[in-house]
């Protein structure tokens, strides 16, 4: 089936458009998260979402209404743990994540069964995006990107040296909390649209790829966003050509781009070593 034919399908068009927005969203947020050692927060919050959906089904409340507040609280909880309990982000995420999934399993057990399979309920798929999900994703992307754009230098300062940022009058407590909440909402909503594999990968891979090559913070953000879009769009087209599962293809594309960046950086370093005069 030709690629042109594919592009006539609504679900492919939505995959491309929604994918692009989510790509930029996760890439920019991802740079901040990776630099602060919160790379696995996507997975961690996904586990919490699992527990919160179980809670929602248990209490017979529409799960998304319960998930978003609970995941937001957990995100703040992770933040607090890193501040008070002398932990780095990865350990704090592990704690909250385990709690979420264990809670969900127990709830599922106590409830004696639900009317729908929890996992299939939670995780979307990029090939199955509906119009409402498209609007939500675009709306969310714009909000988060606006915040990052407007507070760009404050976020930069805080990520580089939180103490100094505070002495510059940056409200680090509030900004940290805002970032935690935005991350939570991003993870829950994008997970329901494209699934956790893709969300986690898009939060981490473009960011680490950018870190291989970037010579400035602004550059890092731009490279991450570009790499992310290329992964998504390129991944979709490749999956059309080869008839591969699209989500997984996108992730593979991301990994390939990372390896390319790594090779490029290594090559640059070698060049430097052998010809010190060359930039």
């Amino acid at each position: 089936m030709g690629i042109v034919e594919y592009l006539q399908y609504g679900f492919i068009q939505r995959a491309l458009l929604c994918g692009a927005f989510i790509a930029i969203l996760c890439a920019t947020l991802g740079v901040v998260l990776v630099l602060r050692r919160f790379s696995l927060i996507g997975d961690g919050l996904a586990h919490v979402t699992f527990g919160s959906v179980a809670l929602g089904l248990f209490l017979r409340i529409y799960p998304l209404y319960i998930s978003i507040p609970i995941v937001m609280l957990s995100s703040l909880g992770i933040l607090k743990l890193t501040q008070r309990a002398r932990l780095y982000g990865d350990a704090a995420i592990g704690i909250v994540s385990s709690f979420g999934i264990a809670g969900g399993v127990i709830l599922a057990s106590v409830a004696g069964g639900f009317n729908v399979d929890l996992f299939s309920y939670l995780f979307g798929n990029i090939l199955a995006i509906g119009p409402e999900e498209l609007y939500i994703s675009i709306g969310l992307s714009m909000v988060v990107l606006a915040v990052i754009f407007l507070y760009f230098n404050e976020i930069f300062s805080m990520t580089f040296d939180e103490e100094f940022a505070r002495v510059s009058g940056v409200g680090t407590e509030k900004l940290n909390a805002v970032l935690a909440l935005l991350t939570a909402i991003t993870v829950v909503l994008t997970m329901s649209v494209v699934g956790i594999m893709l969300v986690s990968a898009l939060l981490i891979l473009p960011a680490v790829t950018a870190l291989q090559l970037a010579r400035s913070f602004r550059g890092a953000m731009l490279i991450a966003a570009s790499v992310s879009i290329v992964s998504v769009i390129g991944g979709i087209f490749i999956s059309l050509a080869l008839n591969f599962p699209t989500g997984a293809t996108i992730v593979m594309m991301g990994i390939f781009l990372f390896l390319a960046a790594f090779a490029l950086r290594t090559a640059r370093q070698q060049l430097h070593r052998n010809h010190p005069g060359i930039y």
Partner: protein
Amino acid sequence: MSRNAVFRISLLFALCIIAWSCQGKVAEKPTGKLAVLTTLFPLYDFAKNVAADRAEISLLLPPGMEPHGFEPRPADILKLHSADVFIYTSPEMEPWSVNLLRGLQDRKIEIVNASLGLTSDEKRAAERHAHSDPAHKTDVDPHLWLDFSNAMRMVDNIRDGLIRKDPAGKDIYDKNAAAYNEKLKDLDSRYRAALTGCRVRCIISGGHSAFQSLAARYGLEYVSVYGFSPDAEPTPGSIARIARTLRQKGSRYLFYEELLDPRVARTIARETGVSLIRLHGAHNLTREEFDRGDTFIGIMNTNLDHLKTGLECP
């Protein structure tokens, strides 16, 4: 707080937890009746019909759970150890059952592989049908109970297993099994009658492949988005193919499955403007269906109605 105090409090805490968990409910063995543990819903329903009052049948899978994602909990292991009979479909359908059985040292328990005897003709026939559809290349369709002739054989296997464990009840088991198989035979002929002369000769599914053997039995084609494993991700090709098939066959309905969120089916329906109808694979029931007391035959009857609508049969 001194180190000594911390240690003593921890010890006290640990003792309390141990004492509290010891009070937990011990699995009660009902007096006289056979304890039968089944894995999936069809086996549960078959066993209930065959054993009637002579046994207490329980279903391992909790309501609402999709069998492929199932992981046995401690209470499940306990149930297994206090069961007299354990019935499962096949190692392909429930791979986790193999692990469960490995841990079992009690030789007194009667283990019933319900798919016994389905290895020769029936399974090979299913295999042949599977090979003819490019979407399902290698495996045999493990959803054996959806071909009612297989289901009848499964009922017989269950009957034999119960007799082996409880010879005293042989007459009752024979009678009940025969009666239930009559119902299945009747179901089969009603299906055959209803599904001839349908306008659409293809069951189009927006979910996993489960009705391969059922379709083949009544001379219908069958396509689905995924293969057997629910972990698989759909490819753009598989989704587009279903959309194309719907258009080609001029079908106005797309079938979706039970329990799993029909995300992909909904996407295809939105794309093609068809309506969604459920085809229940009977792996397991929702909490509601279970409380309501739905039966296998009841579910298959509903399926038949839905098939008649979806395939536009006279």
